[in-house]
């Protein structure tokens, strides 16, 4: 489990989007599974975008959005199979969404919506999952459930989790590796490293001019 942190505007979202192939790097290149990114590799990566405004009236229910995670796997022209729906239901269960399955997404709270987007990313059964501030709208309890779930998937299935967090406690408790960026990698190491706090202070308080 990798945690990414950095001040607002430091390029965290940009980094994730570059890994996904949504943005072309101006220099250098991105290798995923040892190769440049293609449609095939995109299918093996789950992505949960940073919380943004969706239309409140969009005609989709929770289960519709979660099922989108299966679309690329199933492929063009094909309908989702029973097996897909089993996976979707299991994921909704894991993210405590089963009761909300038929709720229009416009009627969800921010935190509930965030869980929908996580479920969508998990429904893909990816090998890597990229999460952009996944717990920014979750309550304490849900945050812990959420992180525990990721940890479990990480330990059981070897799911690689790369997540942007603003919560230092989460980074320390739940990641194996922390990367702090501010336009460039400023610090990289383990959560136990003695110089972590000092590095954070430097990056967030003494350096920033934002």
């Amino acid at each position, binding site marked *: 489990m990798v945690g990414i942190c950095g001040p607002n505007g430091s390029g965290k979202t940009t980094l994730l989007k570059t890994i996904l192939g949504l943005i072309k790097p101006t220099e250098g290149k991105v290798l995923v599974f040892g190769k440049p990114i293609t449609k095939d590799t*995109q*299918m093996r990566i789950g992505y949960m975008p940073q919380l943004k405004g969706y239309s409140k009236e969009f*005609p989709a229910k929770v289960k*519709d959005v979660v099922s989108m995670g299966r679309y690329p796997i199933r492929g063009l022209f094909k309908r989702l199979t029973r097996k897909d729906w089993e996976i979707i239901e299991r994921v909704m269960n894991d993210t405590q969404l089963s009761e909300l399955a038929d709720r229009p997404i416009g009627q969800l709270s921010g935190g509930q919506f965030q869980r929908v987007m996580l479920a969508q990313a998990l429904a893909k059964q990816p090998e890597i999952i990229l999460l952009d501030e996944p717990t920014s709208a979750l309550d304490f309890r849900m945050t812990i459930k959420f992180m525990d779930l990721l940890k479990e998937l990480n330990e059981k299935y070897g799911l690689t989790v790369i997540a942007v967090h603003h919560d230092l406690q989460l980074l320390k408790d739940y990641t194996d590796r922390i990367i702090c960026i501010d336009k460039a990698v400023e610090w990289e190491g383990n959560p136990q490293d003695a110089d972590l706090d000092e590095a954070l202070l430097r990056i967030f308080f003494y350096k920033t001019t934002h």
Partner: protein
Amino acid sequence: MATLEDFIQAFQYDWMQRTVLAAVLIGVICSLIGVFIILRGMVFIGEAIAHSAFAGAALALLLGISDPLLLVLFFGISTALGIGYINKDEKVEDDVIVGIFFASFMGLAIFFIGLLPSYTSNVQAILFGRILLITKRNVNLLILFTLITTVSIFLLKKEFFMISFDKELAIASGLPVTAMNYFFLVLIALAIDVSIFAIGAILVFAMLVIPAATAYQLTYDFNKMIVLSITFGVFSSLGGLFFSFIYDWPSGSVIVLLATFLFVVSYILSPKRKLVSTVFLLFKRNFKHVPEISPLPHFHGENQGIEEFKEHLREIQKGDEKN
């Protein structure tokens, strides 16, 4: 003025059956495409394509081409592809460029019409639509395009749905969004180009937008939205045909006015706006029971620390798991 009897009598004639079929198909093709236009907020793009088709029709009149359909198709499809090309970097906020397309085609169309020696009834037909004069070739193409559109939207429904919901997520998932975008723009062009002579160049894009917008008011279910949109579309275009026959009104405007009427009704009834229930509530007082908030047991002092709180939550969670 014709009577209702004339209208029913007319059904025995080939041309009338053809016209009714055309009305139904126009309702289907426009309002089906319209669902995705509404969900993706591409209303303006639809209008730009419609105006390019108008310019094509005007040019055909100027050149004295008897059936302007081919030229209309050429203009419509090239505009669709052009807009797709400009939009290919996935910047959706290209309103300005689309707006310039839109205005310049309108200018071009008016220019061509201005060069015509006389203002013929053909111009009227292009502007306002004459569903009763729709040609056989137009109806055949309409059948073909409706089939293509319905089948491909049915087959690619989930992908179009996902792109409408979140384009970036769709790209990141590995869906061929760029190709599908071009394809969708061409479908818009086909729908407009075969409907233009029945509804008129000025109003054809309204038929793409209004039935779908009406359906959008009424449901949170995507499939229901499609069904409702098509229902409203077919109802409006058949209604337009009827009034056009009886009163000799321009079919396009009647179709659009009927569709607008449905929109207003559904806007008022919409569960998304709660206009009706709000009015009811004015007559009904409701008292809500406000529960007392009990304080958290474990927290005293100021900086007891988040760790302790988390410990507490973990305890609760363990309890949960046992249940």
